[in-house]
């Protein structure tokens, strides 16, 4: 099954599944799941990585992500405001990690819901600073357009809160965002089952990001493959075009077929 490539900031990707690296039982288990998922974009919390450049053996998560295989997408989780997020992104760039950044500013550690005001502020600064910015946002269509206007490479609205596995609870808003945005829309957070990922892709999301559902599965590698298959199926269905929903049954062999013969 071949689907159209995903293009972000002029770069082409053949997998539409982005994978997060938190919550795994070990770095080895994480690396195996990344491999199985077929992903090409991997996000890592900078606060877990060694930013000192000293090769800290107790903070060596980056050593398990092969930069030849994956685009490393550092994220700013831990930052509570624009200033802190900008600082982390610049530090990551200075440490040679990346000039792409998944902009995450969630000051509320309970639900990890993104702060729209600080995110927009930080996005503006980082774009001007030459970063490729992928902001994590609530499913707010106006915010998505505002971010696009300042030059972000994508928007990443949530399906439901991070780690909640509740799937797409923001469908109506996501539909508007997908309808209106000209940059790729990546549904991030809350996707707990492959069917959730497929549903996001059928809606027309350009990609999805999955972490918890893979990381805490009893067999992360198989779950990663299950998500990859669902993403591909959902994307193919979107490209083919799904039939319209009807309130009544429609026979697969229409009774009126004789009229057109």
């Amino acid at each position, binding site marked *: 099954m071949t689907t159209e490539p995903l293009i972000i900031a002029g770069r082409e990707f053949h997998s539409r599944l982005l994978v997060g690296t938190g*919550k795994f039982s070990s*770095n080895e288990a994480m690396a195996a799941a990344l491999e199985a998922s077929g992903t090409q974009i991997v996000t890592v919390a900078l*606060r877990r990585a060694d930013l000192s450049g000293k090769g800290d053996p*107790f*903070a060596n998560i980056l050593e398990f992500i092969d930069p030849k295989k994956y685009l490393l997408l550092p994220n700013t989780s*831990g930052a509570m405001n624009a200033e802190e997020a900008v*600082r982390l992104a610049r530090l990551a760039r200075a440490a040679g990690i990346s000039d792409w950044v998944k902009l995450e500013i969630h000051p509320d*550690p309970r639900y990890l819901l993104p702060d729209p005001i600080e995110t927009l502020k930080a996005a503006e600064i980082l774009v001007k600073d030459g970063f490729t910015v992928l902001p994590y946002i609530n499913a707010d269509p106006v915010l998505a357009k505002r971010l696009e206007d300042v030059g972000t490479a994508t928007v990443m609205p949530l399906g439901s809160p991070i780690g*909640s*596995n509740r799937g797409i609870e923001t469908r109506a808003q996501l539909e508007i965002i997908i309808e209106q945005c000209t940059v790729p829309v990546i549904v991030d957070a809350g996707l707990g089952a492959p069917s959730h990922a497929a549903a996001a892709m059928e809606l027309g999301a350009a990609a999805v990001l999955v972490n918890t559902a893979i990381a805490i599965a009893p067999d992360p590698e198989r779950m990663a493959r299950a998500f990859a298959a669902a993403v591909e199926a959902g994307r193919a269905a979107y490209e083919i075009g799904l039939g319209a929903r009807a309130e009544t049954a429609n026979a697969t062999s229409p009774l009126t077929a004789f009229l057109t013969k």
Partner: protein
Amino acid sequence: MNLPDFTQPDLRSPALRRFAALLDPLDDARLSALAADSAALTRKHFGRAIRLFAPLYVSNECINNCAYCGFSRDNAILRVTLDVAEVVREARHLVAEGFRNILLVAGEHPKFVSNGYLEACVRALAAEVPSVALEVAPMETDEYVTLVRAGAEGLVVYQETYDRETYARLHTAGPKRDYDWRLACPERAYAGGFRRIGIGALLGLTDWRREALALAAHLDHLLRRCWKAQLTVSLPRLRPCAGSFAPTHPVADRDFIQLLCAFRVCFPQVGLVLSTREPAPLRDALLPLGITMMSAGSHTEPGGYTGQGKADLHLTVRGRMVEPEFAAEHATGQFEISDDRSPAEIAALLRAHGFDPVWKDWDAAILTP
């Protein structure tokens, strides 16, 4: 600041109502079901990761008398306050063992443990340790601002007991007698800019169910007031210490497990801390159930990791300094730890159980301009 009486919690809060119900005695089947829920929720919110930290005791001088604490003013124990260079040497030992998250602990003594001293300790450590937290006597908000600017990220303050009568009976001398000053401390810490705030109650001083419900009510209150803080809860059970205080209300292992799981189920995103006070077999058993943060290889005496401060050891008897009659090797600890396995052993054990020991999950650069 007028705080609610947490010993009379408002059970209209759904989390508290549920918590209160989960403290009722449970049969084996229901306890197993609670444990399973707790384990599943922990995995969902925290994954297969356990954060490791180490306490670094910088001083055991104290002007308070707390019946259950080895550092009480009237205890005739060996005391010392490490100088900043000694604190750094202790911290370097912990960093070499893997710790990237250090909790500075001190008794309350304005002369030895001054704010300037703590600020100097934090500043020196923040340059080398990604995450520095404090467990020290309550302060004013502006003092917290200074410590946060120096690089401190977390503050831990236990109310010890929420029962006012018990609190008054056990805290017989010193500024710690002021229950309300201590109770409002987490909110002052939040106002001062701390990111991680730890609260807790000592188990064994009074009825554990009432104590736990008051602690949960305090947590519920803080979750609303301090919405940007990462809150953690500790449930230390009293351990033997100098002064030979015996807990009047010991908490059985089974009750302890129920309590921990009840916290997890009602407050799924709150960190639960387990220290080396608990014995190894119980710590191992609790691993999958709800714990998110552990200490390992801890020493509760200043200088305990590398023998710093030996030259300045002195005996104090009822607050007065006395020359020790024998050559002392180290200061007296706050309490006896129960799990004495090394950090490397704990990390290996975590891996063997399918958990990722997380040493670093914070970077000082987030806060430092």
